Each structure stands twice: as structure tokens, then as C-alpha cells.
């Protein structure tokens, strides 16, 4: 067992290049005003619509997590708290607002003032306030797409029409703000691109059903999520995911896993503690425990169960994605079912729930979720608590203790099962 590991493949470098190119575009937009940029939230993002204007998405969440992963999130969080944000406010919000106040960006480049702040309000009430504050601080128009929460298994016709109407209104608003006419053909091509990217991403996720899994569907999936949200609707996105699939498929065919020996297979629930991302990963690496599925990697979209954007019904499929095909807008029972399918179809040994102190959206109900999996389904489930952005909530010794104890127990379960099989 090793405590430190290198996890990088060539796709990690490709990802870095793509994301730097994106930040380059944002820097250019900040300096020249072109291309137009639109602030959006990741969950159920409608990046396809932006392609119809040649506009570039700006994701405050990605900026916030980039800072956290580089151990730079505390200063902006404290700056926001100085302004009056409470200790238990979403730390993403505080980091982002703090950055704005202090002029901090995740790279050396600049971030533009967006043309529009588009609050694609999916599942999280806090975002509404976050984007209202951004609009106020940046003096930028705000448009809120009110996406109905999933109350039933499928959205109703009126839910879909409601969102499609708002997408059409967004188009008109963006035409006014950018001075550009909406290019419907380009939008349709973007939806087509997304459909192809999503197919590739889904295939990658299904590779994790093999044993050993060729990649970690939590820690490595996070690397792939940036391109998924920024480039999904572009040919560059399709190319990136074709290359990623080829690399990972070759690895899977050669029976190469993340570790020398894949000892445990896990399903991960909740965002990671970005300020201690590497530390947290190493705690699982020590036990050669590989995540084979994760709910966090479906925040931007849930594609492994078959949903694709549809170029024949571009607006409707964008609406369907925003309402029903991302984990944050789905109800808790749907999330339970998603995790249960992962455990069974991806052949997992247990579930790890990472409770995020400052994220009510993702963390509400996770205590019951733990009970459901341990008591009703008999799936070993560990509950650990810290934060996705605020380093003050991460207690390394406590977290390590729980993880070690969980694997000690899981080792026993596997060992006795193995003995029973031999007998």
C-alpha cells in the first residue's frame, strides 16, 4: 500500500490544455469584449444555446473550485464574510463573491464582466441569490430560467413547455444584449455535437463496470467534467472525448486499473473536498479503492442511462436536460435509485457519502440516505463530513479515521465472503 500515487494519464494533459484555452478566451473577452460571455451554473447547463450566439460560458463554480484545489479559497471566503456573508452560507458563493471583491482569478488572466448572468435555476435556491448578487456587483442584466423541480418520475408536458418558452425568451434577450442574431443552424449543430459527446462520455462511464475499472469515476471523472461542461457542444469536445475513450478503452482491454490491484469498488455521493482533493484521494488510494460511479459526475448531466440531446428537437431536449437529466434537479428517491443502480450494475462494495457542510442542496437527506443503504439494502455505507470549498471544515485525522475503519470492516466482509465461497 502506498500513500502517494501519480494518477495522471495523457487525457489529464489534454484536459489542462483545453481548459487553459477556455480561460484564454475569457481573458480575450475581458480585454476586447469579444466573444460575448454568459455566466451560468453547471447543473443542467444549456451551453448549446450559447453556441447559437458564438458566446462562451463562464462558470463561477469552476472558478471557485479551481481556487480551492490550489489552496487559495480561504482568503476570498474571508473577504465575503467580512462583507456580511454568514459562516454557513454556500462556500462557493463566498469564494466567488470574495474573488470579485479582491480581483482574484483562478489563472493569471482576467475574467470578463459577462454579457448576461443567466441563472439556470436548477434545484438550488442559493444560486438564485448568488446570481442576484453577482448581477448587482457587476451591474450586469440577470435572467432567471425557472426550472421546475422533479416532483414525479417524468416531467409533465407543461413543465417542458414552460422551460422551452423561457429558453426562447433567453434567445431574444441575448440577441438584444449581444447584437447578434441567433443562429439556429449553429444551435442545432451544437445539440448534435452534445449528443455525440454524451454518447462518448456514457461509454467511458460504462467502462468502469469492468474489473479493474480503467479510471476512477469520481476523482478522474472530475478531470473530465470541465471539458464536458465547457466544450460538450463543440467539435473540440467530441475530439477530446473520443481520445479519452480510446485511451481508457485500451487500458480496460489490457486489464489495467487505477491501482496495481483493485481492492475495493465504491460509489461516491456528493462533491469532493476540493481544498484537500489530493489528501482525500490518497486516503482511498491507500486501500486501493476505486470509485466506479459517482453522483457528482452527473451534476451537469445524467447521460449513462441513455438520455441524449436531440438535434431533431433541440429546444425540447435542452429543456428535458435542464429539468430531468441532471442529479441536482431530481428528487431524493430518484437519487437513491441512481445510486442503487450503480451499486448493482457497477458491482460496488460500498457507498461513500461526503456531506458538504455549506451545501444544503446536495447534503439534505444524506443521513436518511445512509440509513436506506445500510439498513434496508445492506450496502456498507460511510458518511464523512467536510466542505467542497472551505478548508476550515476538513479534519484530516477524523476523516482518515473513518475511512480506515470503513475499509477495515469492508475487508472483513470481503474476506469472510471469500472464505464462504471457498468452503
Amino acid at each position, binding site marked *: 500500500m502506498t500513500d502517494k500515487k501519480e494518477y495522471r494519464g495523457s487525457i489529464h494533459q489534454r484536459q489542462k490544455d483545453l481548459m487553459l484555452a477556455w480561460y484564454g478566451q475569457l481573458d480575450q473577452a475581458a480585454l476586447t469584449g469579444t466573444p460575448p460571455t454568459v455566466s451560468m451554473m453547471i447543473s443542467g447547463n444549456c451551453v448549446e444555446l450559447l453556441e447559437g450566439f458564438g458566446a462562451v460560458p463562464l462558470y463561477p463554480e469552476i472558478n471557485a473550485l479551481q481556487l480551492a484545489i490550489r489552496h487559495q479559497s480561504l482568503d476570498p471566503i474571508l473577504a465575503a464574510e467580512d462583507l456580511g456573508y454568514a459562516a454557513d452560507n454556500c462556500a462557493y458563493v463566498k469564494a466567488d463573491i470574495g474573488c470579485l471583491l479582491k480581483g482574484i482569478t483562478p489563472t493569471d488572466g482576467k475574467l470578463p464582466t459577462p454579457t448576461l448572468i443567466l441563472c439556470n435555476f436548477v434545484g438550488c435556491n442559493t444560486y438564485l441569490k448568488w446570481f442576484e448578487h453577482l448581477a448587482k456587483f457587476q451591474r450586469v442584466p440577470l435572467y432567471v430560467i425557472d426550472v421546475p423541480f422533479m416532483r414525479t418520475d417524468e416531467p409533465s408536458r407543461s413543465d417542458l413547455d414552460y422551460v422551452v418558452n423561457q429558453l426562447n425568451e433567453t434567445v431574444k434577450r441575448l440577441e438584444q444584449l449581444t447584437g447578434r442574431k441567433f443562429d439556429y443552424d449553429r444551435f442545432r449543430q451544437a445539440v448534435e455535437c452534445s449528443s455525440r459527446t454524451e454518447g462518448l462520455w456514457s461509454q467511458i462511464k460504462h467502462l468502469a463496470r469492468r474489473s479493474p475499472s480503467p479510471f476512477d469515476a469520481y476523482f478522474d471523472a472530475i478531470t473530465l467534467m470541465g471539458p464536458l461542461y465547457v466544450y460538450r457542444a463543440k467539435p473540440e469536445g467530441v475530439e477530446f472525448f473520443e481520445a479519452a475513450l480510446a485511451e481508457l478503452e485500451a487500458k480496460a482491454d489490457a486489464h489495467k486499473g487505477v491501482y496495481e490491484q483493485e481492492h475495493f469498488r465504491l460509489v461516491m455521493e456528493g462533491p469532493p473536498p476540493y481544498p484537500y482533493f489530493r489528501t482525500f484521494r490518497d486516503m482511498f488510494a491507500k486501500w486501493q479503492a476505486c470509485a466506479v460511479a459517482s453522483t457528482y459526475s452527473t451534476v451537469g448531466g445524467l447521460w449513462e442511462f441513455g438520455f441524449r440531446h436531440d438535434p431533431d428537437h433541440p429546444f425540447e431536449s435542452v429543456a428535458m436536460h435542464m429539468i430531468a437529466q441532471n442529479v441536482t434537479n431530481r428528487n431524493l428517491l430518484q437519487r437513491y435509485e441512481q445510486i442503487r443502480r450503480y451499486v448493482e450494475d457497477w458491482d460496488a462494495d460500498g457507498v461513500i457519502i461526503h456531506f458538504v457542510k455549506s451545501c444544503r442542496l446536495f447534503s439534505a437527506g444524506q*443521513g436518511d440516505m*445512509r*440509513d436506506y443503504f*445500510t*439498513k434496508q439494502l445492506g450496502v*456498507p455505507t460511510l*458518511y464523512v*463530513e467536510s466542505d467542497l470549498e472551505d478548508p476550515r*471544515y476538513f*479534519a484530516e*485525522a*477524523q476523516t482518515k*479515521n*473513518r475511512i*480506515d*475503519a470503513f475499509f*477495515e*470492516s469492508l475487508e*472483513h466482509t470481503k*474476506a*469472510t465472503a*471469500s*472464505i464462504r465461497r471457498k468452503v
Partner: protein
Amino acid sequence: MRIVAGVDVGSTQTKAVIMSDNGGLQIIARALVDTGANVQRAAERAFDTCCRQAALHTSDVGFIVGTGYGRYKIAFGNTQMTEITCHAKGASFLCPGTRTVIDMGGQDSKAISVGPKGEVLDFVMNDKCAAGTGRFLANSAEVMGITLDEVGPLSLQAKHPVKIATVCTVFVESDILSYLAQGKTAEDILGGVHIAIAKRTLSLARRLNIEPEITMTGGVARNKGMVQALEEVIGRKMQVSPDAQFIGAIGAALFALEKLDQSFEFGIWRGEHAASGGH
């Protein structure tokens, strides 16, 4: 004859035991020292004390397992395991039939569901809050100007225990001062403190299926007032070994014994020691 040791470096105190299987498995030495700032030194002191007690040289000990928060600082240990796993193992050894462990230590409280062989089935712990731990009691004792050893017996004399509203280890001090100002007796205040901790611990343990036999472990198990308060809120008697404070170290020593005996691939989990009893 096999001689093994377990060293449990807790946040407040460090415990060590030496066990031998000469003429039946038994504890031949035990030591307790304050952990203090130098974790490694505390582990060495506890282990050395045990060796002197048993008239052994350190090299006579065949295998040493470290546990507790400071387990990775035990330079002389052969391997480490969490105290959660060790408490389950140790409790099953000392109190056969244990299915639930309630451990109250200096800064931790935890509930563990235990299988028939002393294995951990599930566990829950306090998170980011010392309510329901020994620290809550220590702070209460300090603000009332009495020693920690006195709080349990005094609490048993409570006639009308007060209601402690806060679960915060820091703010309990102002609650206590307020009751003192109202002229409440130390016994009634401490009775209330013990009930508050017991209720807090019960709400933690309820996240598991609390099944009998219930065994209480950890340093707070020495406090008879706490044992009684917990039994009252749970509505069931608990098993409390005189060695409750050493159970983590004992569990570690049992694992050390099994590690020493590698005749069976997964021997550490066979639980034969639990089955044979340990008193």
C-alpha cells in the same frame, strides 16, 4: 508462548497492554499515561511501563499494534488499526455477546454495531463537536471547581436534576454558572449534565440498530454516574468491564496476536478469542 502488545494513543490518554497466551490468553500488564503534546513519547512511556510491569524486555514482545488517533506516531509498532475496529474486538473479548459498543472517550464518542466475531458491522461517531464526550464532563467539572473523579458520584446524589439546554461543550459553562447563581446544588447540576450527555450519545447511537448486549468502553465508562444515566435513557443495562478504558488497547493486542499467527490467510477475523471468552 506468544507475547503481544496493543497501544492506544487517544486524544487525552494513552493506554497500553501486554497479553500472553501462556496458560490461557490473559492481560499481563497495563499502563495509562496522559498523552500530552508528545504523542510518540506518550506511546513509548506507556509501552515501557507495561514491559517493566511484566518484567519483559521490549524485544520479548512479538508483535505490537498501534491504535487511536496517534497510531501512526508509534514508531516501535508493527502495524496500525483504527480504534473503532479495536474497540469492537476488545469489547467482544472482555464481554462476550457484545453487539453494540458505546465508546466515550476524551474527545470522541462513537457507537459501533458488532458482529458475532467481534467484527465491525457499522459505526457512527460525533463530528466536529465534542458534546457527548469526556471533554463535556471535564469542562463541567472545571467550572464547578471539582475533580473529574468526583462528578460521577456527585451526580448519583441528584434529587432534581436540572435541564441542560445546550449541547455545546463551551456554552455549557454559562448554563452551569447560571444554575449556580440560582442556588441549585452541585449534585442536581451534575445530574443534569450527565443526562444531557447521555441523551446526546443516545441520539448518536440511534443511527445504528442498538442491539443487546451493549458494552460501554472508553475512559468515561469509569464514571458510574454516566453509566447509570446512559442505562436510564437507553432503557437497558450495559456491560462495563473494569478494563473498559483499556479495551482499544486490548483489541489492538488481540489483533497483534492474530497478526503474529499468520497460519490462516484471514486469521485476524476468525474471532476465536471472542468465542473463548476473555475474563
